[in-house]
């Protein structure tokens, strides 16, 4: 019994070690007073962080990523919500085909999706930039958002919607007063996940962004010059902190202001 517990503990430590130690190097080297990532550490500095304030291209790329992320997550969650509702609630002709079609970007290699959009976009004579990147991200995020929402909506009691119609609300009133609040935990989760997927997406951005770099594109561009590496490490460290914060925020949002029973419901949903 004891031995078994120990081997499980060792396995757990190794697992989390592989997962997180490389990530920890990022913040460590971001405070190191040297241009190279190597031990021993040369000394403590916050220069690399200060450097970020002066990089106008970095600010532009950050702003581009936020814009793309917000639009892509909102649009893909909206599409995913309608699709998930339809798939769970109704049985209709072509259900499996349309489910497969929506899931396709999740399954085919991203680079093929990127090249296909690139070819069509250029042949249509439109300029590369954030617009095709956003379209690509919507395609790419929708299946993720839909999977989350289907899981949430599957446990939903649809007689609640009938009860709302019965009590005098039309379809929109029912959606706003009953469905939306009850789907909300799923919707928030889908929004955050879509945003994060879009925020660190590289391949689509690489092919479609043209001269409008997103944040991952900016980082990739900087990596080619040794001297510019340290402030990318600092940027990476900030992104890790920011991502962790978003996830914690999502959990907090789900639970805030809810009684015990409501929490149970939220978890069930």
């Amino acid at each position, binding site marked *: 019994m004891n031995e078994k517990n120990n081997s499980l503990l060792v396995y757990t430590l190794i697992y989390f070690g592989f997962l997180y130690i490389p990530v920890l190097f990022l913040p460590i080297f971001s405070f190191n007073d040297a241009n190279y990532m190597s031990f021993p550490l040369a000394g403590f500095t916050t220069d690399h962080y200060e450097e970020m304030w002066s990089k106008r291209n970095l600010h532009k790329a950050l702003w581009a990523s936020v814009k793309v992320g917000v639009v892509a997550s909102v649009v893909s969650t909206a599409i995913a919500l309608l699709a998930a509702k339809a798939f769970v609630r109704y049985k209709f002709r072509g259900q499996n085909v349309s489910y497969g079609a929506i899931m396709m970007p999740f399954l085919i290699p991203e680079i093929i999706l990127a090249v296909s959009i690139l070819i069509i976009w250029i042949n249509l004579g439109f300029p590369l930039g954030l617009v095709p990147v956003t379209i690509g991200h919507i395609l790419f995020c929708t299946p993720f958002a839909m999977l989350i929402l289907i899981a949430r909506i599957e446990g939903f009691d649809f*007689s609640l919607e009938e009860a709302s119609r019965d*009590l005098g609300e039309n379809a929109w009133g029912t959606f706003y007063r009953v469905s939306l609040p*009850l789907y909300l935990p799923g919707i928030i989760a889908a929004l955050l996940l879509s945003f994060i997927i879009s925020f660190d997406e590289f391949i689509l951005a690489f092919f479609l962004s043209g001269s409008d770099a997103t944040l991952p594109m900016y980082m990739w561009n900087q990596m080619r010059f040794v001297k510019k590496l340290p402030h990318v490490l600092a940027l990476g460290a900030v992104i890790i902190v920011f991502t962790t914060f978003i996830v914690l925020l999502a959990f907090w949002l789900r639970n805030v202001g809810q009684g015990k029973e*409501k929490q149970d419901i939220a978890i069930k949903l």
Partner: protein
Amino acid sequence: MNENFIQINGISKHFGNVKAVDDVSFSIKEGEFFSLLGPSGCGKTTLLRLLAGFEYPTNGNLLIDGSDITALPPDKRPTNMVFQNYAIFPHINVEQNIKFGLRKLGLTDDEIKKRVDDVLALVKLEGYEERFSGQLSGGQRQRVALARALVRQPKVLLLDEPLGALDKKLRDEMQLELRTLQKEIGITFVFVTHDQQEAISMSDRVAVMSEGKIQQLSAPNELYKNPENIFVSDFIGETNFLKASTKSKDGDQINVAIEDLGDFKVKNNLNIPENSSDVVCSVRPESMMISRDKSDWDICLEAKINQTSYLGEMTRFYVEVSGINKVITVSSQHFDNQSFDNNTCFISISLEDISLLQKK
């Protein structure tokens, strides 16, 4: 009192090849406690959902209080529903649940408050305003569902097996309470159930359904005493069927040959034709008498007791009569499983209590 308050005219509802409701027509009176009774899959719930507007009929039309509601969506109908699982909104409290349906009625704040207070008193839920559905018992949820529907003062209240989820004692209490409530407020109730005891104890009239059709529509005592066909006789209460064939008519009565028993003259309420072999005689277990000695009733048979079940207020005997290849059920309040030596007894039947029914 409007005799045709709800009119159901030639209503059919088909799901693919399945005729869930098959060309049904009848009327429900104003202020009536009306039940739709039948086994699962008989079409009773579909008919209720057609009245609520959750389904639209394949054929036919529906009128409530003179106006055609066939094509109206649920939110435009003068009906409200108590759902089988109650469907209490889990994200808002009891008070907000009850107020949910008042938003679009254009009431002032004072009117809303009065209506909510009144309905809370009516269903005895004062003090539970702040609770959420997860903090309520089954019976309390049912009261919230009832209050939420009644607060809109609908012309018709639809109830979809609302007592099915409650335990027996609570169910019996709620039956009585619902009945009292309905008489008090005078709203027309349409009640769906598969429980025949529930339907006959609560309703003014009952429509027994099977395979999408109405088998019989009568007052509860009529259903029990004068079933119009084998399905109803079998579904309402318990009964014994004896094979028979008709002979000649004699006024209101008809001569029948009951298999293995002989020829008798019985009442013929359903006007069954002469010389038909497609008939059965139905005799209720409690209309027969079981005794130690021979009686002078119209039919008296010596029998052997196979099995008994003691039910407290009565005992049910399963007996075999020599010459009849069938176990007959007799119930008695006077005798129990200890009463008979050697398991021999006499069972007596009065011709009055024999219902003659036609096979399909």
